[in-house]
């Protein structure tokens, strides 16, 4: 497995911690941002290999973030995983439309997350 730099974007710190914990346990380096706007700001100076983003966030939601990412040349093809909830059925479609690579429904456990991350990274 090749270690990657992954950005997790979520307005709930707990969620961020959880994802960071799971992914770094698998050997990846994890960065955090509380919403889409902050994430974009961060990405101006730091390069990442993948983004895991929640959908509902203030300032800029996950769908818009995905769209904006796709407009940036260096992130046009970067794997993006969106995190949705059970009742947000249309978010999945929106995410697909925005150009996300994959999705996961929370709550999930570590194994499920790792499995999808692996697939999204193309392993």
């Amino acid at each position, binding site marked *: 497995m090749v270690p990657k730099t992954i950005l997790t974007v979520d307005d709930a710190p707990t969620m961020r911690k959880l994802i960071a914990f799971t992914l770094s346990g698998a050997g990846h380096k994890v960065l955090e941002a509380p919403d889409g706007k902050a994430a974009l700001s961060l990405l101006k100076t730091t390069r990442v290999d993948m983004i895991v983003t929640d959908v509902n966030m203030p300032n800029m939601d996950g769908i*818009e973030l995905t*769209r*904006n990412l*796709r*407009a940036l040349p260096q992130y*046009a*093809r970067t794997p993006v995983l969106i995190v*949705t909830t*059970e*009742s947000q*059925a*249309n978010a*999945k*479609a*929106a*995410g*697909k*439309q*925005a*150009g*996300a*690579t*994959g*999705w*996961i*429904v*929370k*709550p*999930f*456990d570590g194994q*499920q*997350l790792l*499995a*999808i991350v692996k*697939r*999204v990274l193309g392993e």
Partner: protein
Amino acid sequence: MQQQLIRDLVMESAEALDQFERDLLALETNQQDSDLLNRIFRIIHSLKGTSGCLALHKLEKLAHAGENVLSLLREGRLDPSKELVSTLLRFSDGLRKTLAEVGETGAEGTIEHAALIGELVAIEQGSTRMPPAAAGSAGLFSDEDPLFQQATPGPTSETAAAPEPGTVADSAIRVDVGQLDRIMDLVGELVLARNQIVRFAGNTQDAELIKPTQRLNLITSKLQENIMKTRMQPIGNVWAKFPRLVRDLSLELGKQVALSMEGAETELDRTILEAIKDPLTHLVRNAIDHGLETPEARRAVGKPLEGQVKLRALHEGGQVIIQVSDDGAGIDREKVLRKAVQRNLVAADEASRLSDREVFGLLFQPGFSTADQVTNLSGRGVGMDVVKRNIERVGGAVDVQSDPGRSTRIRIKIPLTLAIVPALIVRCAGNRYAIPQASLVELVRIGEDQVGTLIEYVEQCPVYRLRGNLLPLVHLRAQLRLEGSDSSGAVFLLVLQAEGRQFGLVVDEILDTEEIVVKPLGRELKGLAVYAGATIMGDGRVALILDVMGIARRVGLLNEHSASLRDAFLQDAKSSVASGRQSLLIVGVGGGKQAAIPLASVARLEEFACSHVERAGTSDVVQYRGEIMPLVDVVQALGGAAPESDSARRVVVYALDGRNFGLVVEHIVDILECEVKLHRTANQPGILGSAVVQKRVTDFLDVAALVAQSGVASFEKAEVEQL
């Protein structure tokens, strides 16, 4: 203020809905285009918002229902299936209907679109019933959609979207059409005033006047040209409706149709576009309805399942050519003829003699329909005859070609003449008439003394020899049923052209060429085929504009059948018909007597100056068309006096045994056909007998005897051999 806003909304929405439909149709083939999906959503979203603000609540409600569906479409939760697109097209129609109502009355009318809204709501709700995603479940989008590629949509902000209709048009402005028309009229008046000034300046030596006049001339021409351009619009504007039309029709009829449009940028004057809009629509409908076969039928004959309908427009030689063609079953000549005979449009025995062009022309006759069942689409009372008439009303022509079993091609030609045309002004029976220069080939002046000879008659039809070809003549005075005979002075012949056929129009006087403003005749006079409109002359009086095609048709020139009959007759004057009638050339033979010569052997009527008559031995001869032709003086042979030495000789060139002889007569009287009952008179050599023709006793010449009598025959033969 409110009213103005509403008017603006109506106008902008019409364009926006055009775009909406275009995008929907494109979406059918290009399903993932997020730009399209965003745009169609935004169009309706915007329409909803604006209608709400303007208290147009019915519109708002309908738009809202559609917007919800479009939102789902945009999110990828609905697929743009054929059914969905059809529903959305109907949704667009519903919006248009209410908008039209608003445009006309300022209010929304009574239509609630309840059924349509219900349908849209059902679609919306049908797709929200998706099962909630299970916790922990995850996946790649490419799992669902193997072809899914991560699209690279632009940033979300609504304002940075694909160009709205209107942003591209920053270099264009809206102008009320009525305003343009007013400007057109004023320019027309300016042209007339300019014409007058130019005329006056022409009579003056005043240099101070001439220069500004020239400038005025130039500026006016340019102004005219440029104003005309503002009225030009691309034919694509009319074609824009066709993709939808074709789609709807093909679904309804169960046929597969591919529409291709070439030359959409070709420009035409606005009024012409307006006039051909319906005919073109009808032709496209026809091509799909009657031309193209069903997929099964096409497969059976080895054609690709999808039928082709091709629209093509181009400029060619001062005309616009528009073609509608299809690769369908073509036109069945026999079927058309059968129907035509059935409808008494053609006599049964004539049927086989008609050319393909004429047979197809039958399709344009009123009351004609070859469909086995008149479908409710094309048979709506808009027949092919109406198509033809509408096209001809703007000066165009339409014809049909077909390759049975393979294709059909309908060709429309429309002259680019706009409202101001150069014309020749002539006078006939004291009134002035204008003839468009476009139809004028050349002018011929026939001097007073030549009228009798140069205008000849075949079967009572006047003709003129124009460089070897016989040109049928039409006397304008007679056509217009005006009184008085043609002036005894010189006459003028206008060689005119209509659909490739030429004829000569005889008028009293030729006045001027001028640029005239063509004004249409009102409904009370529209039916008169000989007029194309009227114009106001420089002196303020009205003059009528002649319709060359109308005149040609009226005299039967454009009827191929009779024209070819006439041509055949003119070329081969063997007119002896089984009925016992004979065609005769009646000539004056001196002393007030007249004689008849069988027309069958008459080659030509000529006039030779006396200087051309030469002496060869004891005979008079002339050099004629490369040979030496002996002259036989019929007048003298019948006891008349010899011609004066310096007068011209009127000669009937007569073919006898393969040689030409010139029969000298006093003058030509007439050509006619009649039953001949000869009375054998006392044995006078050279005369077969006599009969009463046109109330006069007429001697029937025995030409062979006359020739033999004159002694020229044997002499000539020897002469020729020597050479």
